[in-house]
């Protein structure tokens, strides 16, 4: 068997030291009638070479061989080689949660740097050391809001928030009495008036997204003011690339800001593992979920880092903990730390601008086709909703066959984004897409629509 050391002779020596006659004897703790008594029916003994060949064959071409214009929360961004090189170091990825600070200063300092970079990026006071992904981060933010203001009657959610994030919220709150009220989007955004009307005196928070699921920009300042006027907290899910070009969550005065961190150095991987970014104002830090790294000094006064405020966490506080999270997304946080270090403020700005300009260009090219329109006449960041005369599922299947992966279609999420959206789909752009690819997409869509 691979990865084992002991020779039969060594096993005998060990058994003798233990005082057991056989390995089977060690398993006598398991009542005989509960023992499996057969081998698991799982084929094994596949060599490394065979396994690689098998996976290569079965998985087919990368991205199905198509050019990626897919959006909806994760995006096909460029990742500098240095990110993979540095995070492939076994000293990082084969370590675990840094419980023993002296044996984990590398990880701890990197997470402290991550927390700082995310604060700088978001304009928020404090970042934790990561949660699972964007969707669960939203749910954790709502739980945190309830701990902060003690209100648990209602949470108001923008209908322009990622439909999967809203589904996660509904599952997480399915056994609790809290009412989840969705304010429908109209014309690609939610209205301040409708949100204000939905905010009651027992509403814990208003949950928003910027840019929202349609790619459009919301009036976050107005919505945040409405939430605060009702005594509720403002929770914002933001695109972590957007601060390269747009205002940061902190600039709007929101209380908790979360994000799906994937655009900053994490591959798509069919949607996981991802990175849940979680930030808040400093006065709420003791109510935060997840791990936090803090700076301190050691016995000899040397600056160093530790897991901090652990009394919030499940291994200490158990059923009173601020979250059940234990293992988080450490390696993805490290990837983002390296990514932001090497890309820097100018690189991030360039990346955001390129994505935006290419989205503008793509929107212009695509809407030149007869019958193709931008569904919402609003400014957008890096993705937009396109409407064509044909059902979106049909159009996207035909585009995929021509080598262009576009979407998702809005009907994929039922009517959670509104009704009558069967001919609408998202188109997302990143710095990776070239003018030639965009022109070719427009030509392909022209072909598809002219049948």
């Amino acid at each position: 068997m691979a990865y084992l050391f002991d020779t039969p002779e060594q096993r005998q020596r060990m058994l003798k030291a233990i005082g057991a006659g056989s390995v089977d004897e060690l398993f006598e703790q398991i009542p005989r009638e509960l023992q499996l008594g057969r081998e698991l029916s799982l084929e094994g003994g596949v060599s490394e070479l065979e396994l690689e060949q098998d996976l290569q064959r079965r998985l087919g071409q990368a991205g199905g061989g198509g050019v990626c214009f897919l959006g909806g929360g994760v995006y096909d961004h460029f990742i500098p080689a240095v990110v993979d090189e540095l995070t492939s170091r076994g000293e990082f990825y084969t370590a675990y949660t840094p419980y023993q600070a002296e044996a984990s200063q590398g990880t701890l300092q990197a997470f402290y740097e991550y927390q700082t970079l995310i604060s700088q990026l978001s304009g928020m006071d404090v970042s934790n050391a990561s949660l699972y992904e964007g969707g669960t981060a939203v749910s954790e933010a709502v739980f945190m809001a309830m701990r902060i203001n003690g209100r648990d009657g209602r949470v108001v959610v923008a209908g322009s928030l990622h439909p999967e994030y809203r589904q996660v919220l509904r599952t997480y709150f399915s056994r609790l009495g809290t009412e989840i009220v969705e304010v429908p989007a109209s014309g690609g955004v939610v209205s301040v008036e409708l949100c204000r009307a939905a905010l009651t005196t027992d509403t814990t928070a208003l949950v928003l997204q910027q840019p929202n699921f349609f790619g459009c920009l919301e009036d976050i300042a107005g919505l945040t003011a409405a939430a605060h006027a009702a005594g509720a907290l403002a929770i914002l899910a933001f695109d972590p690339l957007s601060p390269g070009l747009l205002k940061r969550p902190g600039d709007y005065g929101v209380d908790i800001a979360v994000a799906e961190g994937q655009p900053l150095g994490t591959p798509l991987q069919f949607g996981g593992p991802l990175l849940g970014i979680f930030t808040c104002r400093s006065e709420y830090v003791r109510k935060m979920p997840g791990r936090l790294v803090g700076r301190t000094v050691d016995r000899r006064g040397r600056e160093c880092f530790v897991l901090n405020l652990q009394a919030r966490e499940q291994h200490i506080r158990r059923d009173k903990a601020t979250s059940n999270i234990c293992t988080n997304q450490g390696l993805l946080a490290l990837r983002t730390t390296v990514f932001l270090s090497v890309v820097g403020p100018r690189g991030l700005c360039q990346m955001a601008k390129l994505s935006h300009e290419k989205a503008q260009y793509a929107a212009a090219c695509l809407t030149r086709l007869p019958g193709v329109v931008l569904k919402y006449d609003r400014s957008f960041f890096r993705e937009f909703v396109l409407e064509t005369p044909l059902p979106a599922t049909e159009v996207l299947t035909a585009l995929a066959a021509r080598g262009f992966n576009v979407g998702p279609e809005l009907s994929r999420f039922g009517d959670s984004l509104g009704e009558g959206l069967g001919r609408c789909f998202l188109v997302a752009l990143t710095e990776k897409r070239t003018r030639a690819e965009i022109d070719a997409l427009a030509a392909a869509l022209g072909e598809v629509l002219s049948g």
Partner: protein
Amino acid sequence: MRGRGVEQMRNPTATRMLFEMSEPGRGTVVFPESDVPRVTGIPELGAEHLATGLLPLPELAEPDVVRHFVNLSTLNMSVDTHFYPLGSCTMKYNPKRHERLARLPQAAASHPYQQESQIQGLLSVLYELQGMLAEISGLPAVSLHPAAGAQGELTALLTAAAWFRHRGEQRTRVLFPASAHGTNPASAALAGFECVQLSGGRDGFVDLSELRSQLDDRVAVFMVTNPNTLGLFEKDIATIAGMLHEAGGLVYIDGANMNAILGRTRPGDFGGDMMHYNVHKTFTGPHGAGGPGAGPIAVRDFLAPFLPAPVVTFDVARNWYSLTSPEYSIGRMRSFFGNVGILLRGYCYIRTVGGRGLREAADCAVLNANYLLSQVRDFLEVPHGNRCMHEFVASAKRLKEQTGVTAMDIAKRLLDYGFHAPTVYFPLVVEEALMMEPTETESLATLDAFAAALREICSEPAELVKGAPHTTAVCRPDDVTAARKPILCWSGQC
């Protein structure tokens, strides 16, 4: 004095804070100039949305970034560099082949909203993994959705709650022993259950009469780790399961310790109705300095219609894999499918070792743990017997009474000897606990060296041990002040 020889060769310039290394105007060219013209007629970004000025991120040169993180990495202990007997965490070898296989562009560059026709291969692999995990657990229905073990617990509890609701039952309580992982009560509370902790018997096992006294129609689920956190197989698990089932409740198996029983017994065979796996523990997905993990769950068939969405299904007639939602699904627990990158590593491991190899891994993990136990029990108390499964819990209580040396002191001193520390002060039912899990991927020579180090430490002068570690970059950070006045962010100017 023992040292690792790195003290003298350390490069403190490179491990300054990133922010202290920043120089305005420095940077690395990553992206090209724009190749698209400016357009008109498309809504433009308004001033109310635009950022003003450059983000306050550090500006660094790539060579500096590389030297920084490589030097930081040398301040870590890891499985690749050290014996890491962190109990309950299964710090076994992480095969390098999995890293390359999981990064194949066909997997790494797959977008979750691609057309189903383009991901048939990936779905076939995930479908096969669902079947593998069903076979290993003896529980037929699998969800690969949860992001980590704790989320697996929450997912299973919500699944159980949906089943009870479907049957018109209002059950409000979740029971667990005092030796449970902290995630068990935390997950139960998050799922809206009332938590009831059982104190357990003196022998480390669930106390059947105590359990019986708590069983009534309010009890939804009994959560139990098996083997338990003392490294003992719950000998009465079948009776326990029978009691729960008779009372109309369900049994949840926390699968953190699956490495002990792979191919020897199965949660489904000893009465479990639901369980989670920790792919990053049992199936070698690396621990990533604290994640990512993957926490698939396996459940009995009657719970299958309530599992979260999506699951992978296979239509034999059409030879087609699909992502579907079970009939009465609780819904989503996270966005997208699951932690596919980690699941693929687990899949590669199971394919490599097979059913026989998994059992050999468990055999060797249990052999190694029992051997280590036999080597330490003459100088360290092991309160719960002379045999264990894949880990055991020693206690420094006697040593503390005699010399003042605590479990934490021993843990810190082990670092000087070049070993990562065991888990300390867990489970809570053992005073001065040192929880040791050697795993199967360690040699006899390593175990002997570790046992010898422990023996030596236990006879060293107390002040030497209490002053440890002496050879690491830092010694005993002041976490009390850290918590009182938290500094969670570098606050200078870049």
